[in-house]
């Protein structure tokens, strides 16, 4: 199914300098009861954003200073449960890129399957990004998928890895199922001979 095509994104970013952010924090289990993919953004980081009586907490997403389509987070982002809802909620909230120095495997896959680009940078560069945002929350960050580069306002940059196949999918807005469906005859054949 066609998704939004990703080429280059220039945006301010929201810094979340916490490590090991697990998918239970990204979207707590009690919000997994929907049967569609939409509307999860409202409950992104729900328990960090709101008290139990729904009044807002002192949390970065409630702090108007930081906005943008890029989420910058500490290492081992997205660990824990395989819930794809985590990727959906981040996307639905409006983010298109997550930058971290390390991603949990399943989350990375889920993100890539949902037009959310996980960008893994070095610890040093991540620190640099956090510092740049802290100094100036309005600083733009450029994520260039074709060049596989993150560029900061001061011109410093770092390149990131992305699998060539996933890159093609993202830039063309198509997904794994489209590819697998094209293999159906081969799969039938495999079933017959195994």
């Amino acid at each position, binding site marked *: 199914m066609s998704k939004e095509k990703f080429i280059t994104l220039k945006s301010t970013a929201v810094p979340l300098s916490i490590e090991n952010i697990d998918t239970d924090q990204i979207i707590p289990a009690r919000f997994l009861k929907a049967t569609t993919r939409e509307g999860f953004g409202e409950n992104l980081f729900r328990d960090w954003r709101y008290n139990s009586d729904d009044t807002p907490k002192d949390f970065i997403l409630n702090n108007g200073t930081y906005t943008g389509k890029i989420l910058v987070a500490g290492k081992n982002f997205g660990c*824990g449960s395989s819930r794809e809802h985590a990727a959906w909620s981040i996307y639905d909230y409006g983010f298109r890129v997550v930058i971290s120095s390390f991603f949990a495997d399943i989350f990375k896959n889920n993100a890539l399957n949902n037009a959310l680009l996980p960008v893994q940078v070095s610890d040093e560069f991540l620190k640099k990004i956090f510092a740049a945002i802290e100094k100036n929350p309005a600083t733009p960050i450029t994520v260039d998928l074709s060049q596989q580069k993150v560029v900061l306002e001061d011109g410093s940059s770092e390149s990131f890895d992305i699998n060539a196949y996933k890159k093609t999918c993202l830039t063309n807005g198509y997904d794994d199922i489209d590819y697998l469906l094209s293999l159906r005859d081969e799969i039938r054949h495999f079933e017959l001979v195994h």
Partner: protein
Amino acid sequence: MPQQKTLFDKIWDAHVVKSSEGHPDALYIDRHFIHEVTSPQAFDGLRKRGVKVFNPARTTATADHNVPTKDQHLPIKEALSRHQVETLRKNCAEFGVELYDLGHPYQGIVHIIGPELGLTLPGMTIVCGDSHTSTHGAFGNIAFGIGTSEVEQVLATQCVLQYRPKTMKIEVNGTLSKGVLAKDIILYIISKLSASGATGYFVEYAGDAIRNLSMEARMTICNMSIEMGARGGLIAPDETTFNYIKGRKFAPQGETFDRLVEQWRQLKSDDNAAYDLVLTFDAADIAPMITYGTNPGMGIKVTDRIPTVNELKDLSEQTSFSKSLEYMGLEPGSAILGKAVDYVFIGSCTNARIEDLRLVANMVQGKKKADNVEVWVVPGSKQVENQAREEGLDKIFEAAGFQLRQPGCSACLGMNEDKIPAGKYCISTSNRNFEGRQGPKSRTFLASPLSAAAAAITGKVTDVRSLV
């Protein structure tokens, strides 16, 4: 000498439908499990694309994540949960998928029923939209959790697109001390590797301490592979495995079974197979373990002190460490032994098999729970529940003041009514101690079923070795 391969590589290679340059492998899936939470959007996707389920006989469904554990014969009270279970029912009927619904004798936690019904076999590829699919690897297969988009891939094509992970061997050798269970082995390994130490790897567990474990215990180990970041974990099958499978409902029977066993005996890593990483641990060094923090890597021997900030291996983790202890209401450097608990949860796909319930019953027989604790025993499946009743374990639990409930995921993730209240401490046999995992602001200590049973009796964190 022919190329030396790991068991993982052998199974993987046998399931690659297509491997082409620059693409992930299209991997054929032998067995697919689904449940109410991560499947609705996948079925929706099929409808939107106008495709059918490719091979419905290879998918099995059950309702487990948000089902109540009391009065399962009544309609689910909570509207959203009810809607999700009803949606699963409709989807299974529409697409021709077998469903073990609430009330069905085979219903239960997805990773408990697969093995129990003989659906989980050696040499297979198994996936489910749930990270603890790694449990099935205990039978010598490749089993891993997938996201909903991948559930849709499997429904539509019986394949998933995957990159081959790296392989790691974890050997545990020697003899376990009294009171030390499989749960302690895996909590110990995770505490050594951290919550991300095995990311990118598929783990094979080996060594005599693993070989000597029952199937139930092996499942506990493989179950928590994901807690150190691994995609999955597996253990080469052996007589223990074949004996467990023999005679199970959907397992191959008679001559077919015997013939398969001969094939399954070949399922092992070659002697000189190369792993990307090999780690070795000594069983004698493992003690009853408990977690004190909010990720499963934050575990210590129950008699150890909680570390201080200065003792952290990785100084960059200071902030999350302090945040974690604050959440848990614990002091760095303090003892965890003797800490009072409010709830005891014995359940989940990690430790809710019949063997776990027997261990607990055995320990609490003739004893009573402490007044300050509430104790929930939630069997992993309807079959486990019935078996427990048949063996009279229900009487032992009742006499001890424990509540024996009906099967489901329950307080493992608190999607149903079984939530640990804010600020309360729960010693839990489940697998995750994340913030709010067992209910908003709940505080979780992960431990073995024996340690949980001991805490139920004493009302506080206890070294089970003092009771066995």
